[in-house]
């Protein structure tokens, strides 16, 4: 029985194949695989919905708290550069995704905008996996990364939805027999995104973590740090089940979306790593920023798109985000962004 190291401190001079193997043999990746497998063999295995909700509340809040405690050690100067490029990424990625889908993929306006909203936002679990990865290869990311996560979550969704609404109303004007439905007011959408569960927990956690600092963090550390990886493992089991549910839709999604779900992240990841290195992030920081840019949201984006662009087909955006891009990033993407970041940073 061969055994490999995983998520243990690892010398940085390791070759890419090793890195891939580390990544593959971690409980996180394997739990995800178990979930997918369970769906493929049509197992009855499923996590109670409330457990899923409880775990995602825990993960987001823990992320915020821990990030806040680390943030209390950071200076504003150190953060401002990375924050700027993060916001830039939040504006670039939805546009590039939209253009590729609409022009090259010939998707409808609604579908293009809907998928772009997912790729413009960020997947918290991919972020966490990238953080764990960089720590395990001995190149931990900066402490303020969770702050960047919150900066990247919303703009992308907003921009993609705005493009969708704008283009659709232009199209409706050209062809005025539509159902004439009033679009939802922007204020309402913004309110929903800004007060969403993940925003509340991330930003709230960040602020609380900053306020209480190390000494206030200590007594709650056993829960919010000690349990983190184990509970994440259980969460990834559920993610695997959800992705497995979507595998059957891969055919419907088509080859173009399959390619998009793999190549678009590599492009976004490369841009992310490059911008990160410009902003002075470490190799670990660049890797995590790249993974964020490369990832597609499947928590914040789906309901926002479903509410605002119901014409977009959920099969497309959920399959792409959950069954293609997420596992790709988890298995191969993160190590790739790490290799790329090493180049940019040296």
């Amino acid at each position, binding site marked *: 029985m061969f055994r490999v190291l995983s998520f243990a401190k690892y010398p940085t001079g390791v070759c890419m194949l090793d890195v891939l193997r580390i990544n593959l043999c971690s409980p996180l990746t394997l739990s995800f695989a178990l979930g997918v497998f369970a769906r493929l063999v049509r197992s009855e295995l*499923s996590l109670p*919905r409330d457990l*899923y*909700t409880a775990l995602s509340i825990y993960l987001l809040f823990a992320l915020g708290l821990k990030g806040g405690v680390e943030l209390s050690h950071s200076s504003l100067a150190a953060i401002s550069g990375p924050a700027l490029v993060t916001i830039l990424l939040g504006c670039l990625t939805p546009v590039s995704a939209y253009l590729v889908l609409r022009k090259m993929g010939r998707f409808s306006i609604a579908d293009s905008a809907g998928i772009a909203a997912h790729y413009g936002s960020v997947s918290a679990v991919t972020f966490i996996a990238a953080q764990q990865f960089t720590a395990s290869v001995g190149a931990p990311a900066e402490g303020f990364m969770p702050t960047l996560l919150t900066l990247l979550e919303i703009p992308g969704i907003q921009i993609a939805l705005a493009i969708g609404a704008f283009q659709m109303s232009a199209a409706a004007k050209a062809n005025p027999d539509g*159902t004439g*439905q009033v679009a939802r007011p922007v204020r309402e959408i913004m309110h929903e995104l800004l007060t969403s569960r993940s925003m509340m927990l991330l930003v709230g956690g960040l602020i609380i973590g900053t306020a209480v600092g190390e000494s206030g963090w200590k007594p709650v550390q056993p829960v919010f740090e000690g349990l983190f990886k184990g509970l994440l493992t259980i969460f990834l089991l559920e993610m695997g089940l*959800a992705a497995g*549910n979507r595998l059957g839709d891969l055919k419907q999604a088509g080859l173009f979306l399959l390619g998009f779900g793999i190549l678009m992240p590599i492009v976004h990841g490369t841009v992310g790593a490059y911008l990160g290195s410009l902003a002075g992030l470490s190799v670990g920081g660049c890797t995590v920023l790249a993974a964020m840019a490369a990832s597609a949201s*499947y*928590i914040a984006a*789906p*309901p926002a798109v*479903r*509410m605002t662009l*119901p*014409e977009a087909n*959920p*099969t497309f955006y*959920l399959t792409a985000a*959950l069954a293609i891009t997420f596992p790709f990033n988890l298995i191969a993407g993160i190590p790739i962004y790490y290799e790329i970041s090493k180049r940019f940073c040296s």
Partner: protein
Amino acid sequence: MKTVPLCLLTIVAEAILKERLIADVRSAGAKGYTVTEAEGEGIRQRRVGEILGSNIRLETIVSPEVADRLLKLISVEYFERYAVIAYLSTVSVIRGEKYV
């Protein structure tokens, strides 16, 4: 027992519409509503689990006028674009005068 015949309108819809439907029901003049969690399958995909959620099943006891107003609103606002089904039946309500 004296009862009043009233309309029971049942709406099954995807869960993200919950708050919007409740607002609609109230603004159409209903005096109350009851919501249960549900899952299901229709001409759109099967709805279970968390991501994009499951369904809700909303019931409201209303006068025929309010029922008609709600059915119209639902068929214009939601039918084409969202997973939703709605149906009416007649029920005998005690102290039914409170609900019209």
